[in-house]
């Protein structure tokens, strides 16, 4: 049998997604604003690769300097350690986004996978998976996070952080996906696909997945939001990776490690807070735009 190269096949799967994104971008103001802001944020984070090596050190610059336009290092002021708030912020944005996006990738896909399998296969598999999910649902999230964060303290790296936050954020999506799959499973086109004789996994991939994509996208963006929030929350408790710049650790250092809010060193805690808000708002815009386009029946997707 002559097969298409795998990559083309995968590309084929993503085509609707890309088409959808382009359409949304073209027609939805919210989406456009959100996506542009997000891109700007990512670019801002990307600048961090240019961080001068000595900025990883302390007391490179005079401490507690307010923002000034004299050089890029002090454009956003300096910290009490004499570090550049600008470089710290770019790194923080990048790291936080990486954590959040990794979390979204892990958690929403685990949720998706479990929900898909449970919903599509039904029966014992469904019951077992849902049992595990429900057991996770009843464990309170914050204590779970705290426990895990403390447990993994020594080996906490960015991917680990994402893994950790994922643990508390997959069960609900799994439940929702399952509910959707159960109703999708009954749709006629699934029957048609079964009749074409393709194996089960392909049925799931070709028939059910595309219908979950929109929701999945929203869920993933929401997970990104959750992850940013969770990382900030853990940081405030001192449980994040304190030696790395993230939005959370910046808040931690500027407000708890070196309390600067009431000292008038506003330029240090403010960027991470504002950036958190901007990340949230841009993702919120993207997510609501997708949700709206899916809900309004003239959705671009179909």
């Amino acid at each position, binding site marked *: 049998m002559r097969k298409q190269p795998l990559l083309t096949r995968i590309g084929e799967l993503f085509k609707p997604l890309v088409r959808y994104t382009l359409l949304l971008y073209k027609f939805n103001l919210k989406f456009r604003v959100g996506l542009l802001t997000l891109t700007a944020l990512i670019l801002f984070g990307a600048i961090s690769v240019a961080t001068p090596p000595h900025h990883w050190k302390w007391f490179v610059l005079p401490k507690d300097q307010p923002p000034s336009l004299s050089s890029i290092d002090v454009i956003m002021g300096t910290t009490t350690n004499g570090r550049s708030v600008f470089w710290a912020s770019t790194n923080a944005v990048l790291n936080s986004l990486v954590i959040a996006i990794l979390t979204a990738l892990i958690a929403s896909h685990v949720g998706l996978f479990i929900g898909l399998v449970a919903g599509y296969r039904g029966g014992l598999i469904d019951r077992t998976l849902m049992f595990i999910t429900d057991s996770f649902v009843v*464990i*309170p999230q914050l204590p779970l996070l*705290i426990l895990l964060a403390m*447990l993994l303290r020594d080996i906490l790296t960015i991917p680990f952080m994402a893994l950790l936050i994922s643990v508390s954020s997959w069960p609900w999506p799994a439940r929702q996906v399952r509910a959707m799959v159960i109703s999708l499973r009954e749709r006629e086109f699934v029957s048609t696909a079964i009749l074409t004789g393709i194996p089960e996994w392909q049925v799931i991939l070709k028939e059910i997945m595309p219908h979950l994509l929109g929701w999945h996208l929203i869920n993933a963006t929401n997970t990104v939001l959750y992850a940013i929030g969770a990382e900030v929350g853990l940081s405030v408790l001192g449980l994040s990776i304190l030696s790395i710049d993230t939005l959370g650790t910046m*808040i931690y250092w500027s407000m708890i490690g070196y309390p600067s809010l009431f000292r008038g060193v506003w330029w240090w805690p403010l960027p991470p807070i504002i950036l958190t808000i901007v990340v949230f708002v841009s993702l919120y815009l993207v997510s609501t735009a997708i949700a709206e386009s899916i*809900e309004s029946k003239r959705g671009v997707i179909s």
Partner: protein
Amino acid sequence: MSGEGLLRFALIRVVYFFATIFTAFSLTYLLLRLMPVNAVENVITQITAQGMIYDPEALNILRRQLYEIFGLVGSPWEQYLRYLRGVFTLDFGPSILAFPTPAKSLVVRYLPWTIGLLFFTTIISWVIGNLLGMLSALKEESILSKILQGVAVTLYPIPYYVMALVLIFLLAYLIPIFPLSGSSIYMERLDLGTVLSILRAATLPALSIVIVSALGWWFLSSRTLTLRVKAEDYVEQAYLRGLPEGLIVKKYIMRNILLPQVTALGLALGTIFSGAVITEAIFAYPGLGLLLFRAISTGDYSTALSIVSLSIYGVALGTLILDLIYPLIDPRVGHR
């Protein structure tokens, strides 16, 4: 619709309830046990770190004695069984954080504070958030609704810590209407004055929670839901029937968003037992969250497990009760 069916369903659901919490408990226990935290060493370190005069040899003896009196002996399996017994009696023995006070009585001491704060803030947030969210969705095009949405989206991601500090600065420092900490009430007897000062002391912590969760979470979710219900055929149809808008909002929109929101409320109420660590820490509010955090970080298994169990029970009971009463509040369930 048979009563027998209901009974059977309830029975299965209850068995399931116990099965899930059993798994959840075991999982938490495992995690706690894996923690590299050690209560005994904490005490020892405290002694040495404070420069106390303690005979070096005696210190080593003390260490061994502490393991015994803190109940940290026995095989993991024995300890697990002891723990499981605790799950049912909710008695995990003496706390370490406040040795020898039983962990149970610590929880009992803190529970009213936590419930007092979180129960009411959850309810208040829920009501305010839902009302505002609904209004903003109903008047989608109005400027006020857009401003409200903007405010909500901006407030929501602000970390609790920051929000609380700003509130304190404004309302306790600059305009000192409220006390700096959440429990500064002198109470000789319980009269109106004390009750008022309790309320006053709890206002700021409550406010910080309400702002973020009412204007943030509940507002946004209720808005989304309302928008969705508003687009339903039956709402448009009611409108075409010439029914007054008030009635449509009340009977068609409100009732339909109420159901999912009641579910969410039930779950939110289930989670209050794990407290609100950050709020409690900032306001010096004596709640379970902070206690739990400290218990975990000092290796006080008995206290940590008491609270975690309570909150597992809370969430599990919340879902159980919801599942059981849902058919009564949502006519559609049980038929789909």
